């Protein structure tokens, strides 16, 4: 049980972080749940009194539930920025439907003879509601809270994408870093939390009504305290950094930056797709990006000079399974034609066209190939089908299109694209499993995320990108029967960026200056 040992080691080593994430996760779930109860239950009661509003209110709350969670989180950034507030709002919206609906149904289902006799005995509207209807509806209302709690424990894992923390940090970090123990360290507590909430609320639900009333009161009060505690203002650093999970965890990412520069920023973890948005919305001031990223120009960002050379440059190339090369050597020949053809400026320009001018990646790739006289019409579809994958950012989309055009123009094979795969681990596993045949990859990522060599090996390779590329290519061929084609030409490296006006204002040009400005 090697994996079990790895898992136990990870949990032991990261127990502080794990505990912190569990507390954050419970916090997110409980606070959003509390708000949903405080607002949803009165709303549910209100619509039992005004039936016309009922279908309308339940309709709107249902719509919130149909919005994909990651999209809802994305919508929240312009409204509330990043961090726990937008996550709580999104979770609150998810929890609303079950609570409103169950409150409504619970009260509607109270036996009409009971409410009639309550009125008959001389209770006022308010007394009937508080003494009879709500107590009798409590088990059903608790059922709604239970459903909402389980939903929220699950959705709260996504909150890590917008810097709200929680167990999603381990889960998505683990996926990005190809670290199974890390994924499990997030996923298992999340599942246990869901079971715990479900089970304990189920027990409460079965309590007699008189006791349930007390329990409900105590829960509301304690949740209110938790909320106050969570939102208690904390002293904030002047500059806040938003990093994606892979950068946070990779040895050549933030850990290396800390080591080389002694940089200690206040960081939040943000999903790669939302990172630029968060910077643009002034939610964070520093982000981790790629040197060739088109958004640098598009969003008027300043790349901080890596004056102590902490980010090693990496080559970019097509990863292709050896069995494809054996079966269809013409595919390799077609892709080899791109070798050394794309320089830094060309790649940055293409990214800019996609990110800022909103051109389609296929058009941009076609235009580029035409300029180099590499573009050919599709030969036909008589051959086999080759599947090309890409990760979820523009450069990958463009390169995947370019590979596709080269194969279709120079071979009889047909190409299917599977774009926007969530991260290195997903792409690599898909390639290994034969789900895709080719995808663009970076030598540094191959080294740090897939091979994960010892520090000694990393030191040996540092500073020599050719040597590093060769090492990685050899390892891949040996271990996985996957080949790296000759590099496309441009270098890609991590970069820290800030908004240009802020950087100019603070006089920050390099990472060292960032460090000294803190």
């Amino acid at each position, binding site marked *: 049980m090697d994996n079990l040992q790895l898992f136990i080691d990870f949990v032991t080593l990261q127990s502080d972080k794990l505990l912190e994430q569990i507390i954050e996760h419970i916090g997110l779930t409980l606070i959003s749940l509390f708000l949903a109860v405080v607002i949803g239950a009165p709303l549910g009661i209100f619509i039992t009194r005004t039936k016309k509003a009922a279908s309308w209110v339940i309709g709107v709350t249902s719509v919130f539930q149909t919005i994909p969670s990651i999209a809802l989180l994305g919508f929240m950034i312009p409204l509330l920025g990043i961090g726990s507030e937008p996550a709580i709002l999104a979770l609150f919206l998810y929890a609303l439907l079950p609570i409103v609906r169950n409150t409504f149904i619970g009260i509607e289902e109270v036996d009409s003879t009971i409410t009639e*006799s309550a009125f*008959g005995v001389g209770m006022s509207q308010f007394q009937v509601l508080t003494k*009879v209807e709500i107590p009798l509806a409590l088990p059903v209302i608790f059922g709604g809270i239970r459903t909402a709690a389980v939903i929220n424990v699950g959705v709260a894992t996504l909150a890590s994408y917008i810097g709200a923390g929680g167990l999603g940090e381990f889960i998505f970090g683990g996926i990005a870093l190809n670290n199974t123990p890390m994924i499990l360290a997030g996923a298992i507590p999340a599942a246990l939390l869901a079971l715990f909430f479900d089970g304990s609320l189920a027990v409460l639900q079965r309590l007699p*009504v008189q006791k349930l009333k007390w329990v409900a009161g105590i829960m509301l009060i304690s949740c209110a305290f938790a909320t106050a505690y969570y939102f208690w203002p904390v002293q904030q650093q002047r500059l806040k950094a938003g990093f994606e999970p892979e950068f946070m965890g990779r040895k050549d990412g933030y850990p290396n930056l800390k080591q080389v520069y002694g940089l200690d920023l206040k960081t939040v973890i943000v999903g790669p797709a939302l990172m630029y948005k968060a910077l643009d919305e002034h939610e964070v001031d520093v982000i981790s990006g790629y040197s060739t990223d088109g958004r640098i120009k598009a969003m008027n960002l300043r790349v901080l000079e890596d004056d102590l050379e902490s980010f090693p440059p990496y080559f970019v190339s097509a990863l292709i399974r050896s069995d494809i090369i054996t079966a269809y050597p013409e595919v390799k020949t077609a892709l080899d034609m791109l070798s050394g053809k794309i320089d830094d400026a060309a790649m940055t320009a293409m990214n800019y066209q996609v990110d800022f001018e909103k051109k389609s990646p296929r058009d941009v790739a076609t235009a580029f190939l035409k300029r180099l006289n590499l573009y050919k019409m599709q030969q036909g579809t008589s051959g086999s089908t080759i599947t090309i994958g890409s990760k979820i950012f523009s450069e990958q989309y463009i390169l995947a299109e370019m590979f596709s055009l080269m194969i279709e123009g120079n071979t009889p094979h047909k190409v299917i694209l599977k774009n926007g795969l969530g991260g290195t681990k997903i792409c690599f596993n898909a390639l290994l499993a034969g789900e895709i045949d080719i995808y663009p990859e970076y030598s540094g990522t191959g080294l740090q995320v897939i091979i994960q060599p010892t520090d000694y090996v990393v030191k040996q390779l540092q500073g020599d990108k050719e040597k590093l590329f060769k090492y990685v290519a050899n390892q891949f061929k040996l271990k996985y029967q996957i080949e790296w084609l000759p590099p496309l030409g441009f270098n890609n490296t991590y970069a820290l960026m800030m908004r240009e006006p802020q950087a100019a204002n603070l006089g920050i040009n390099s990472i060292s200056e960032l460090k000294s400005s803190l």
Partner: protein
Amino acid sequence: MIKVEKLHKQYGGLNAVNHISFHVAEREKLVLLGTSGCGKTTTLKMINRLIEPTSGTIEINGKNVNHLNPTDLRRQIGYVIQNIGLFPHYTVEENIAVLPHLLQWNKPKIKNAVATIMERLQLPYDLYANKYPAQLSGGQQQRVGLGRALIAEPAVILMDEPFGALDPVTRATVRNEFLQMEEIQKKTAIVVTHDIQEAFEIGDRICFMDQGKIQQIGTAKEFIFHPANDFVRDFIKDQQFYLLLKSLTLNDIIHFLPQAIKKDEGMVIPLTESLYHVLDKMTSRGEDHTGWDTKNRINRQINFSSILGAIAQFKTHQSG
């Protein structure tokens, strides 16, 4: 005591209750009788304003109920409904004490009142006070419902099919207990039922309704001997003999009974007893009886044939 004038309730285009008027005297038991949909329940609920009338007035002790706060009004009127409507999350004691709590009586007074009424209802306080409605039989639940309605000693009680949820055997028992309770006897009551036998058993007078209108209002005897129309006659047709025996007393037919041959023979039966009870007793004992009245010193032969003969003569006499 209760005065209903031109009471009207319209639902959409339908006249659920159509300009009805009636009076209920103090301590009288008036039964609203009719098939479902005849408007009897709607009429009852307009009295404690669970339903607001479209037009017409209701006065209780000379006060127009529409000028009273509905909540205050209802606290002065006992209300018992078919499915009892006990609060399932309250104990027996809490159920009975609902109104005293609303009226903010002090604790010893509430406890005392609850214990007293429970004793009267044959629900020993120590055994039942802390039970929940679900732990009680149907008859016991009905008694708790009565206790809840009676605890604040309302002058008026309204009952909607009060024994409707009980099985026939329990129903008869609980009904008899109910009628014999002193608390009930001194109350003015309006009782809704669709059961003719029950109506004639409970009601001093019966108000028979159909399609929102009163078809006839009167005593049992009036219904049998002077039905207002064919509809009424038809409605009571199947129960004619039973109703006759129930509504007539020995007193009614005393002059048609033959004189006793020997004085003071057999059993003494009060003349106010209904013929139904007299025959019932004779069926179980199988002997002749003497009707005996200490004041008038009347001795009559009482057996099956003498009673049936006397009824026949009484009927001829009534119609003649």
